[in-house]
C-alpha cells in the first residue's frame, strides 16, 4: 500500500488553481431542470403554469449550456493529462471516481428492479386477494386475477370511474400481449433475444479493442471499437423497433398499468444508458482516429467508457432475465 517510496508521487498531485467550469455547469443544470419542470407542468397541470411556450427554451438553453460545459470540462482534463500534469495518483482518483459512479448507477437500477420484483411477487398477488396481506382484497377488486404479465389491471376489472374505490385515476388501457416470449411469435423474430446477443457480443468486441490497445495495436483497437459502436447503434435501433411494436401492435404503453410502467421504465432507462455509453465509446474512437490520443499505457477515457459499457451490458442481462424471460 502507500509507503515512503511513492512519496515523490504525492508531491506532484495536481490541484487545479481555480476554475469556472463548475459554476457554468451549475447554471446549465439548473436552467435545464427548471425549464423541464415548467414544460412538464404545462403538460399536466393545465394552464396553471402557462409560460407561453418559453419554458422549452429555458430547457433547451440549459441543456445546451450543460452539455457544452461538460464537453469543455472533459477536454480540459484531457489537455491537462496530455500536458503531463497528472500523476499516477491522480489517475487512480479518476479510476476510483468512475468505479463509484458506476456503483451509484447500479443502485439506481436496483430501485427499479426492486419495484418490479415487489410488484410481481407481493403487490400483484395481494391485489388479487392472495396471501396474508391481501386476503380481503377481493372486496375492492372483485374478479381481478393475478398473472404476470398481467392481462388486465384491477381498475379495468371493476370498471368505470364510479364503481371503483380509487378516486381520480384516469382509465388504464391494458396491454393484451406481453413483451415476453410469446408462443405466437417465432423465436427468431423475438427482438430481445437478438438484442441480448448483440449486446453480449459488443462487450466481447470492446474487450478485443482493449487488448488491441494494450498491445499497442491501434489499428486493431480502432477496428474493434468501431464494431462495438456499430453494435450499440443496432441495439438502439432494435430497441426503438421494439417500442414501436409495443405501442402500435400490442397497445402496451406507459399508461397500461404496472406492466407498462415497469417495462418502459427499466428498458427505457437502460436504453438511455446504452445511448450514453455508445456516445462515450464513439468519442474515444474519434479521439483515437483524429487526435491519436490513445496509447497502451495512457487511455483512461477509453477504460472508463469500456467499464461503463460492461456495466450497461450486465444490467441488460438482468433485464432480459427479469423482464423478458421469467
Amino acid at each position, binding site marked *: 500500500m502507500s509507503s515512503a517510496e511513492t512519496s515523490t508521487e504525492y508531491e506532484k498531485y495536481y490541484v487545479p488553481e481555480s476554475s469556472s467550469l463548475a459554476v457554468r455547469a451549475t447554471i446549465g443544470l439548473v436552467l435545464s431542470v427548471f425549464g423541464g419542470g415548467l414544460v412538464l407542468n404545462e403538460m399536466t397541470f393545465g394552464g396553471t403554469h402557462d409560460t407561453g411556450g418559453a419554458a422549452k427554451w429555458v430547457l433547451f438553453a440549459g441543456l445546451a449550456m450543460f452539455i457544452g460545459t461538460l464537453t469543455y470540462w472533459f477536454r480540459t482534463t484531457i489537455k491537462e493529462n496530455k500536458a503531463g500534469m497528472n500523476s499516477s495518483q491522480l489517475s487512480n482518483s479518476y479510476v476510483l471516481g468512475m468505479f463509484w459512479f458506476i456503483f451509484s448507477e447500479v443502485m439506481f437500477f436496483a430501485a427499479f428492479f426492486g419495484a418490479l420484483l415487489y410488484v410481481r411477487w407481493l403487490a400483484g398477488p395481494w391485489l388479487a386477494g392472495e396471501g396474508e*396481506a*391481501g*386476503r*380481503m382484497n377481493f*372486496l*375492492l377488486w372483485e374478479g381481478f386475477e393475478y398473472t404476470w404479465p398481467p392481462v388486465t389491471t384491477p381498475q379495468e376489472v371493476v370498471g368505470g370511474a364510479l364503481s371503483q*374505490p*380509487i378516486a*381520480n385515476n384516469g382509465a388504464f388501457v391494458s396491454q393484451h400481449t406481453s413483451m415476453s416470449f410469446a408462443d405466437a411469435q417465432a423465436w427468431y423474430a423475438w427482438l430481445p433475444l437478438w438484442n441480448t446477443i448483440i449486446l453480449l457480443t459488443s462487450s466481447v468486441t470492446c474487450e478485443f479493442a482493449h487488448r488491441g490497445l494494450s498491445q499497442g495495436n491501434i489499428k486493431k483497437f480502432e477496428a474493434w471499437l468501431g464494431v462495438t459502436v456499430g453494435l450499440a447503434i443496432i441495439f438502439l435501433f432494435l430497441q426503438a423497433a421494439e417500442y414501436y411494436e409495443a405501442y402500435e401492435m400490442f397497445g402496451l404503453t406507459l399508461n397500461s398499468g404496472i406492466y407498462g410502467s415497469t417495462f418502459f421504465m427499466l428498458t427505457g432507462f437502460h436504453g438511455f444508458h446504452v445511448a450514453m455509453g455508445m456516445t462515450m465509446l464513439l468519442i474515444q474512437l474519434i479521439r483515437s482516429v483524429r487526435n491519436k490520443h490513445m496509447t497502451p499505457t495512457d487511455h483512461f477515457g477509453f477504460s472508463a467508457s469500456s467499464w461503463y459499457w460492461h456495466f450497461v451490458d450486465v444490467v441488460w442481462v438482468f433485464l432480459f432475465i427479469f423482464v423478458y424471460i421469467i
Partner: protein
Amino acid sequence: MLNARALAATALLPLAANAQNQVNMSTGVSEAGAVITDLGVEIYDLHMLIFWICVVIGLGVFGVMLYSIYAHRKSKGVEPSQFHEHTGVEIAWTIVPFFILIGMAVPATSTLLEVYDNDDAEMSILVTGYQWKWKYEYLDADGENVAFFSNLATSQEQIYNTDTKGENYLLEVDEPLVIPVDTKVRFLITANDVIHSWWVPEIAVKRDAIPGFINEAWTRVLAEGVYRGQCTELCGAYHGFMPVEVHVVSRDEFDDWMAAKKGAAAADAALAATELSVDELMARGEDVYNASCLACHGANGEGGLGNAIAGSAIAMGGLDSHLNVIVNGVAGTAMQAFGAQLSDVDVAAVTTYQRNAFGNNTGDVVQASDVVSYKEG
C-alpha cells in the same frame, strides 16, 4: 399567557404519574378499573418493561459518566491514565446487551402474533378513509350492509377560537362507530384517496388505510364506553380534523341501534321517491353542507381549499354541470365524487342548498328524482 399547570408539570414531572392520560400510553384499563382490551394491557406492559430496562441501563451509563466527570477532572489534579483497550470488557458489553435484547424480543414476539390473529371474528366492519372523514360499513352476511360517514363535529367557531372549546374538542364526530362489547370485531381498513391511518389508542388499534389494499385489525373491547382517536397518517390539509369515535355498547343496545340504522336507510330510500318541500331540502342541505363541504368551501360558501360556491358560475348555472361536479367530482383535485358518498336525497338537498344559499338565489329546487335521472344519464 403561561399556563400555571404547564409550569407545575415541569416541576413535578416524576410525580405526574397519576395523570396517566397526559404523560403515558393508555394503560388499557378504564378509569373505573376495568380492562378495556387484553391486548391494550399487554402492549402497555411491554412498553413499560422496555422503558424500565432502558431507564436502568441509562442510569448505569450516566452514573458512571457523572462519577467520572466528578472524580476525574483536571482541576482535581488527576493524572490521565493512558489505557485504551480491554478485550474482555469490550466483548462483555457486546454480549450482555445482546441478551437483554433477546429478553425483550420474546414478549414482543408473542404480543405481535396476537395482534395479527385476525381469525374467528364475530363481525367485520369495512373502514374507509376519505379526505377527511371515515366511512364505516358493517358487512352483513345477508348483504344488508349498513354504511355511513363519520365527520368531525367540532364547529369552525371553536377551531377558529370564536367559541369556547368543548371537552372533546376535535375528538367528536357526527356519527360514531358503534360496536358491541366483548365481541371480536374485525376491521377491514382501506382508503379511497390517499393513505390514512385509523387509530384508537385505548383499544390499541392502529392500522394504515391504503388506497386499493385492505388491511386487517381486530379488537375485543371488554368495557363499555366511548373511545376516541384520530387519523395518524398525513392525508392532506385537514389531516388534523379527522377523528375517530367508537361507542362500545351492550349487545342489546347494539342490536337496537343496528335496527334503527337499517330503518333509517329504508326511510331514506323511501324519501328519495317523494317530493320534498323547499324548506325541508334547504334544512337537510345545510346539514349535509356543513358536514361534508364546509371544510373546503367555507362556512359562507366563500371557498378555501375548494372554489367559492357563493356566486359560482357552476352553482348558479346549468343543473347538469352542477350535479356533474358533485356526483362525479373533479378529477385531479380535492373535489371528490360525492355521488358515491351521499344518498340521492342528500345530493339533491345539498345541490338545492348551494343554489339558494350564500346569496345564490336561483330559486331552483332539486329533488332526489332529478339526481337519480341525472345518474342514469
